[in-house]
Structure formats: structure tokens, C-alpha cells
């Protein structure tokens, strides 16, 4: 027996970054919203959990401050208690640590491994790419750089920088990397002292304060489509089926899931082809390590670009002592696997990353305890697609996608998710008046 819920303007599928940002914006602007999340917690891959006294991520490690995400929180009147950490990078190469200055960092770093002429060739190419024409998307940044240098150390520096965008060096399109280098994540980033779950809870508070609802442990069974238009959702809530009618549906479940939920037969063939070809999920790994003393005595991000896997690490507890129990430290290491897109032997990828940790950190086996290993891929990926893969509007009227599957051509990750929420909210405001 179904129960019906009426009176909602917008139904949101999934309480990830895109879903919660959309719902908070719409609630703020007077729309009656409901967010339905299948997992028992909100935030999706922008959340956190307490494990053995440590605060560990489900996905995102940091969020930029002063950018799209913070502005969205401000717009909806939500606190944004994100504490920044020094953004200065340090490169650990051939057993030495090279600090990358905040200004002219690339030139300074490269000067450790190449003379002016050699570094200049690469820097000039980048300068031309900034000022004249972005490099092609048809070539990887690695192959693009190989046109200008064969110097292993210089290439390693870029391999390390690419890891900041969570894409494999050989898979990152040259144009995309240069664009990120030029316009990408802001100068400062940080985290909520109680973890991402606490940050996302601020958006839930906004939604609920305007009379909206957020349901967890509730699975959307399908999106109701009639006359090529979205009419609502049907939800399985604790074994009961609930029909929720709405004027618009926003899906944060990912473009492929949206197809399944609404029924592929409702989508035109061109769109189905686009989703199939363009929405390719990216893989990534993270290893969390506990220790009694800081394993890396540097308060920022340490790039380790010459190992088996392009790895970056941070002794997170130095900037966020709240993330570890008293007397313990937390090191987080993250790396792209050998391919961002191909299915790989995940155990082998993790084994190689652990080997990199052993090589990069003296006495690792003695001093470190591996707490947790995460591998993101397929339906729980690092990113559901590269930016620009798909637009937010679907062919079904009033059915939108948000989140990293439909990221626009701007900052990767969380800012892109927030941006999709802004784009969709703006469109809804033009088309639909709140009840």
C-alpha cells in the first residue's frame, strides 16, 4: 500500500554535495524540498565517520575556502567553520625535501633539477598556453610535456601536481591540467574540525529550518516521468512505498543512476550515447595511517611524485588534532592508481602505494599502523566524470542532474558540485514558482 506525500516543489535524489547544496539553495529561496538518501548518513563522498577514535573521510579530504562552496554556504546563511592549513607544497624527491614557494614556485622547484634553458622551455610553453591557446584535450599532460622535456625530475614534478586534481598523469588531458593550473582551486583550503559530516550537517539544518525534509536510509525506487516530464519520486522507506509528487526532480545519484531510476526508454538516443561515452568514472586511493609520532613533520601537503604511484601525503593531525585520539597522529596518503579509468587489480595498486609509503617514510613499518584503505571507482568513484562531460539538464523536462557527474569546466570536485547546484537552482527559479 502506497502513501502519498504532496506539497513538495522539488525532490532531490541523494544527499551528496550536489544534492544538499541544491536543496539548501532552493529551501533558502522558498521552495519546499525533500532530499532522499539511501545510505544511513548524509554527505555521500563528502562525509566522514569516526573510526577507532579517528575522524576519517568517505571521500573529499579538503575544501577550498573563499570560493564557490563557501559563497554558497554564505548565501544560504549556513556557518562555514572550515579551518585552513598552509597551502604550501613540499616535494620529497630523491630523499630530499624541496619546499615550493607560493610565488614562482614552479620555476624555483624546477631549478633544483634543470638549468634555466631547460626549465625555461617548459615554462614558456605553459605561459603560451595561458596567454594564447589552451593545449588540446586529445593529448595527456604527460605527452604534452614530453614535447618540451625528457627530464625525469621535471616530469615527476608535474606528475605530483596532477595528483592534486586526483587524476593519473597519463590520463589527465593537457588542456584540462593547464586550465586547472590557471583557474583551479583557490590559494587556501581546509577542513571542518569535526569532519565533513559536520560541515554537510550545516546544509541539512538550512533545509530543515525552512520546512524541508531530509530522509536517510530511504531508497528512491524510481523517478516518475509522464509526458516527458518529471512528476516526482517513489521511495522505499523502511519497507513502505511512499509516492512524492513534485514539480521538479534533481538527481545527485549520478547520470547513469538517473537513467535507471527514470527509465532509459524516456531518454532520447543521442543523450544515452552521450552518457555512455562521456561519463567515465575516475578511480583513486587513500591510505590512513596511525602513529604515535608525526610520520611527516611538515604542516602542509607533501608530494611524493617519483614512486610506483603518484602519491601525496599529509600528517593531518598536525593541522587538525581533533581528527586523532589524544597521543596519536594521523597520516593520510592519497594516490591515483595506474589508470584513472581502467579496471585494475585493486589489491596490487594498494600494495604498490604502501611500498611508496615505506620508501618515503623512514621506519614506516615500525612506527606506522595502517588504519584504513579506501579505493574509489565505478559507482563510488573519485569523480563520476571529467568536467564538461554532460550538462545538468536531462532531456526530461524538470529532471536535472547535479554533482560531479555533470561538473562544469571549472574547479574539480566540491566546487564543481556546488556550481552545478547554482546552475540548476537558477534554472528552477526561472521556470517554477514555489508553492
Amino acid at each position, binding site marked *: 500500500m502506497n502513501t502519498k506525500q504532496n506539497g513538495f516543489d522539488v525532490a532531490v535524489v541523494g544527499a551528496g554535495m550536489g544534492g544538499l547544496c541544491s536543496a539548501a539553495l532552493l529551501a533558502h529561496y522558498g521552495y519546499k524540498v525533500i532530499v532522499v538518501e539511501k545510505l*544511513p548518513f548524509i554527505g555521500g563522498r563528502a562525509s566522514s*565517520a569516526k*573510526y577507532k577514535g579517528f575522524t576519517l573521510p568517505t571521500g573529499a579530504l579538503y575544501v577550498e575556502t573563499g570560493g564557490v562552496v563557501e559563497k554558497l554556504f554564505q548565501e544560504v546563511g549556513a556557518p562555514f567553520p572550515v579551518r585552513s592549513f598552509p597551502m604550501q607544497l613540499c616535494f620529497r624527491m630523491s630523499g630530499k625535501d624541496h619546499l615550493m614557494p607560493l610565488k614562482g614556485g614552479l620555476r624555483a622547484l624546477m631549478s633544483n633539477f634543470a638549468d634555466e634553458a631547460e626549465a625555461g622551455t617548459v615554462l614558456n610553453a605553459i605561459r603560451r598556453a595561458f596567454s594564447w591557446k589552451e593545449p588540446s584535450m586529445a593529448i595527456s599532460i604527460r605527452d604534452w610535456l614530453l614535447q618540451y622535456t625528457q627530464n625525469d625530475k621535471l616530469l615527476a614534478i608535474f606528475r605530483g601536481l596532477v595528483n592534486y586534481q586526483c587524476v593519473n598523469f597519463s590520463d589527465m588531458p593537457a588542456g584540462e591540467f593547464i586550465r586547472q593550473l590557471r583557474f583551479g582551486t583557490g590559494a587556501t583550503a581546509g577542513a571542518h574540525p569535526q569532519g565533513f559530516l559536520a560541515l554537510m550537517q550545516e546544509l541539512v539544518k538550512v533545509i530543515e529550518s525552512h520546512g524541508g525534509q531530509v530522509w536517510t536510509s530511504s531508497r528512491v525506487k524510481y523517478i516518475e516521468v509522464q509526458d516527458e516530464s518529471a512528476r516526482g519520486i517513489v521511495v522505499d522507506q523502511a519497507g513502505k512505498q511512499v509516492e512524492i509528487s513534485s514539480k521538479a526532480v534533481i538527481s545527485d545519484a549520478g547520470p547513469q543512476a538517473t537513467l535507471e531510476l527514470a527509465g532509459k526508454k524516456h531518454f532520447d538516443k543521442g543523450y544515452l550515447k552521450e552518457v555512455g561515452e562521456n561519463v567515465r568514472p575516475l578511480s583513486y586511493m587513500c591510505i590512513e595511517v596511525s602513529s604515535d609520532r608525526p610520520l611527516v613533520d611538515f604542516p602542509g601537503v607533501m608530494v611524493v611524485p617519483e614512486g610506483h604511484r603518484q602519491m601525496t601525503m599529509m600528517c593531518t593531525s598536525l593541522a587538525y588534532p581533533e581528527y586523532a585520539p589524544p597521543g596519536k597522529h594521523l597520516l593520510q596518503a592519497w594516490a591515483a592508481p595506474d589508470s584513472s579509468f581502467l579496471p585494475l587489480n585493486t589489491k596490487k595498486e*594498494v600494495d604498490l602505494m604502501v611500498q611508496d609509503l615505506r620508501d618515503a617514510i623512514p621506519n614506516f613499518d615500525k612506527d606506522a599502523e595502517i588504519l*584504513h*584503505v579506501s*579505493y*574509489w571507482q565505478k559507482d*563510488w568513484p573519485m569523480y563520476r566524470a571529467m568536467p564538461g562531460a554532460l550538462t545538468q539538464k536531462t532531456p526530461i523536462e524538470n529532471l536535472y542532474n547535479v554533482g560531479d557527474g555533470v561538473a562544469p569546466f571549472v574547479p574539480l570536485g566540491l566546487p564543481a558540485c556546488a556550481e552545478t547546484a547554482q546552475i540548476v537552482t537558477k534554472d528552477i527559479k526561472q521556470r517554477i514558482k514555489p508553492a
Partner: protein
Amino acid sequence: MLTVNEDRCVGCGLCVYFCPRDALKVWGACRIDRDVCNDCLICLDYCPVDALGVQEEIPA
């Protein structure tokens, strides 16, 4: 009995966070420690890709 569908498991490790007995180990993929797991099945709710399931126990 709790089972892992190895084709579906992506190795995200969310189940590890939420197992009340710390019976799961994820190293690219999820493995159940049968000596510790008591089939409470709480982890089923936390798997984002529906890789955890239940199978009838085959009598010894």
C-alpha cells in the same frame, strides 16, 4: 551468513567504519573475518554499491 559480491565491491571501505565488531578488512576489496563477524548485517546498509548480502548457511 554475510557475503561479499566480489564483482560489485569497489573497495571503498565504508563497511569497515561501521562494523560494530571490526570484522571487515578492506584492502582494495572487502574480506570478512568469520571468527569475528556475527552476521548482525549492519554493514549491508552502509555499502553504497550493494556488494554486501546474505546467503543461507549451508549446514556442515
